[in-house]
């Protein structure tokens, strides 16, 4: 009866005819250097073509190459029965090859399309293509998107990486003097498990991929990327391990950390001071000493200060070596000295390389959680 009424109104698409995609991978084609490859997982039956059913979760993974991303997207529609809807996209994974090629080329579609939101997250896949990531990440009882979301949500716990939205990345790409850093994932096999005889991997959020002129030049991780996070105020919490007088480990949890980049121009010379204020709690202690004495605390604070300072310095060292200002120092100078900046702007990478940057860390240990003195502390040590 209603078969004639299917398309009375233009622009009406029934929700069950809409294919929601949440994680999408942009890659460089392996066959043709000029082509781009689009990969995504689609829920439900989606027709023939290159689609293959993966696992029991009812997702099929669809890949298609095209001259551009949009071209590939249109080609997908020739064999997928659903209307691809980009509005719910949360993750863009970019393969290493594509990142080395030119990231702007790949992100342009995402920034131009009206459906795609600027709040989605962009990630680089280290040492693999995005397609591989989507194919190999475990999907038995949790989708790729959910796995990646939890990684991003937990990023603050270790502060080696962070959530970066498409909007922020575009802003960095637009800036003439600062360089882009994008969180990267590495495919690891920490949870030993197989899925239908197929090797499965887990994504691990390790640090940042560093870009210069929109091309990938390297990765930072561990302390270096933590240092970058402290400077960029992207870090949340983390742990530092210090030692007591007898060489036993004390684990400190960073509760609060804030940094401030203060540039100063004196006699046409720029000096930059990075001030970091932090507080931390003692969460674990291996020894049996009473470390909550002024002297011991001072010592612990000093050690922590050094750790943080070293991390920041290592980030600065990396930035200076590669001449990439991903620490927002150029920004800080511009905001404080907008007129003088015009002079420094053009030769900023060179200036940045020889910029004297000093790091000040103010650290304070606040609390000790439930107990002050360690269990089993000898009476004699109490004095």
């Amino acid at each position, binding site marked *: 009866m209603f078969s004639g009424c299917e398309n009375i109104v233009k622009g009406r698409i*029934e929700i069950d005819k809409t294919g929601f995609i949440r994680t999408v991978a942009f890659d460089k084609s392996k066959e043709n250097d000029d082509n781009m490859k689009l990969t995504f997982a689609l829920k439900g039956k989606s027709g023939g073509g290159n689609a293959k059913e993966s696992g029991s979760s009812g997702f099929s993974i669809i890949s298609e190459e095209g001259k551009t991303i949009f071209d590939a997207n249109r080609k997908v529609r020739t064999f997928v029965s659903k209307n691809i809807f980009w509005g719910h996209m949360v993750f863009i994974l970019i393969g290493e090859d594509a990142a080395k090629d030119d990231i702007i080329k790949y992100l342009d579609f995402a920034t131009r399309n009206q459906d795609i939101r600027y709040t989605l997250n962009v990630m680089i896949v280290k040492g693999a293509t995005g397609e591989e990531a989507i194919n190999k990440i475990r999907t038995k009882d949790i989708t790729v998107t959910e796995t990646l979301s939890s990684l991003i949500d937990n990023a603050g716990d270790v502060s080696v990486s962070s959530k970066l939205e498409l909007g922020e990345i575009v802003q960095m790409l637009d800036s003439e003097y600062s360089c882009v850093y994008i969180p990267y994932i590495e495919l690891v096999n920490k949870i030993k498990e197989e899925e239908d005889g197929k090797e499965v991997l887990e994504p691990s959020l390790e640090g940042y991929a560093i870009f210069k002129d929109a091309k990938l030049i390297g990765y930072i991780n561990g302390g270096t990327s933590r240092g970058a996070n402290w400077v960029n105020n992207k870090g949340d919490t983390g742990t530092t391990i210090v030692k007591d007088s007898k060489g036993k480990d004390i684990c400190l949890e960073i509760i609060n950390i804030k940094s401030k980049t203060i540039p100063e121009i004196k006699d046409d010379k720029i000096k930059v001071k990075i001030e970091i204020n932090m507080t931390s709690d003692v969460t674990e202690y291996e020894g049996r000493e009473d470390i909550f004495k002024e002297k011991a605390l001072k010592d612990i604070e000093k050690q922590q200060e050094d750790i943080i300072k070293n991390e920041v310095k290592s980030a600065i060292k990396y930035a200076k070596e590669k001449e990439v200002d991903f620490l927002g120092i150029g920004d800080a100078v511009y905001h404080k000295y907008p007129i003088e900046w015009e002079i420094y702007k053009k030769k900023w990478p060179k200036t940045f390389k020889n910029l004297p940057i000093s790091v000040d860390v103010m650290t304070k240990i606040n609390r000790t959680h439930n107990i002050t003195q360690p269990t089993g502390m000898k009476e004699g040590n109490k004095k």
Partner: protein
Amino acid sequence: MFFEKKGKDELKEDDLKKKEEVESKEVDLKKEESKNSGGKVSIEKIKEKLGKSVDFACKEFYVNSNKDLPVAIVYINGLIDSLKTSEFILQPLAESETLKSAQTPQEVIELIEQGALYYSSQTKREKDEDVIKDVIEGSVALVFGQEGIAFTFDLKGFERRSISEPTAENVKKGGKDSFVETLRVNTATIRRRIKTPDLIIEEKVVGKQSLTQLNIIYIDGITNMDIVNSIKKRIDELDIDEVLSIGKLDEHINEKKYSVFPQIDHTERPDKFCTDIIEGRVGIIVDGLPMGVIVPAEFAKLLQAPEDYSEDPIIASLIRLLRYFLLMFTILLPGFYVAVTTFHPEMIPTELAMAIAESKEGVPLPIFFEVILMLVAFEILVEAGLRLPRTIAQAVSIVGALVVGDAAVTAKLISPGVVIIIAIAAIASYAVPNQDLSNAIRLWRFIFVILCSIIGLFGLIIGVILIIFDLAKMETLGVAYLEPFVENKSMQIGDSIIRLPFKFLKYRPNFLKTSNKKRLG
């Protein structure tokens, strides 16, 4: 032959008409005579008018068995209390010592006027029409044919329903009585609640055939007389055969006749009725209808329930806010669902969108048709439930809602999302205290669904603009429908979307333009 016969008939009819005209002229002349000569009531005239009906009773007898004093008693069987009639009228006429002294009919009339018959509501009538009117309303008439004078005694004694609990408007705290069909019982209930002598109960008779009594109730010194006068004027203008259903009155009082939104409030609760009258509104009670009509009723008033005034102000305010929220919910939800699922999938959270898409998979109809289908099905259930006997209605709603609904979902004719949405909207619509308003909203719900199915959320916004336009241009008896929200001087929000403690509600609603503005102090 046939035609000739008909022609003759017509002629006869014409003759009859002429005769009637002559007669009526004679009657008119007689009336004038009677006016001049001071009273001309004749039993023959009364018999001629009423005698064709079986329930008419006329009995002629003599006062104290004195053949010089003939008198007739006239009444309608079933309307009067026969016990009282024989006790207070017939017995004194036959046995009274005072009346024994009377020798002429004039003397009897004088004695009755002086109280020989000890019944309180006694009226002396000198015209046939008045007597007939009284008799029809349930009086017993004592006609002195020779003198052309009659006495009518209000001895109504017909079967009436006793005051029972309200059926549609139940409240936890509050009076348990309700209006009944008998007008005087209702006015008595009101008098018992509003004892000020300023309470005015004015009577009008409407309906050419039904001659229904209708009382306009207001408080002198509070109510804005402009409202009272325009109601009276409109009731006088009412040219109608009968007022046996309330709509006949409503439609005439309504200023804007083509809006589905009610501009008049009805209640079966005397306490609510009285509160509104004291607030400065005008009440109308119609004989034979167990409800009070309150005019003017603005939008905010229709969303107030009597409980609001017996609950804690904070609770009452929250419930009112909830009611406004649910009102919007029930109007907009089905349309919104159609809009977001067919035009704006980005508006739905991803997980939910995927869940909806999954449940919709395999359902042949577009969501728009599903929603319309379910809304119509709901209306059918409501209508069927109203018509059927109460016991069967329950079974029908169970079969309709549970069995058919569940089967339709299982058979993938309707997606479960739509069923949930319509169920929520249906339940929400019953949170509106006024049933007429709820009906109006149910109609608008369809308009919203259709608008949304054409242009999505833009349609929703257009619908909202249309509904506000419709509401904003309405006015009843000089009171804007969207009061107090459109008041430009001092918006009395205190008793609208919230209900403040009574000590803050110092003034009567200013849009009613009451003569006495202060409620407190």
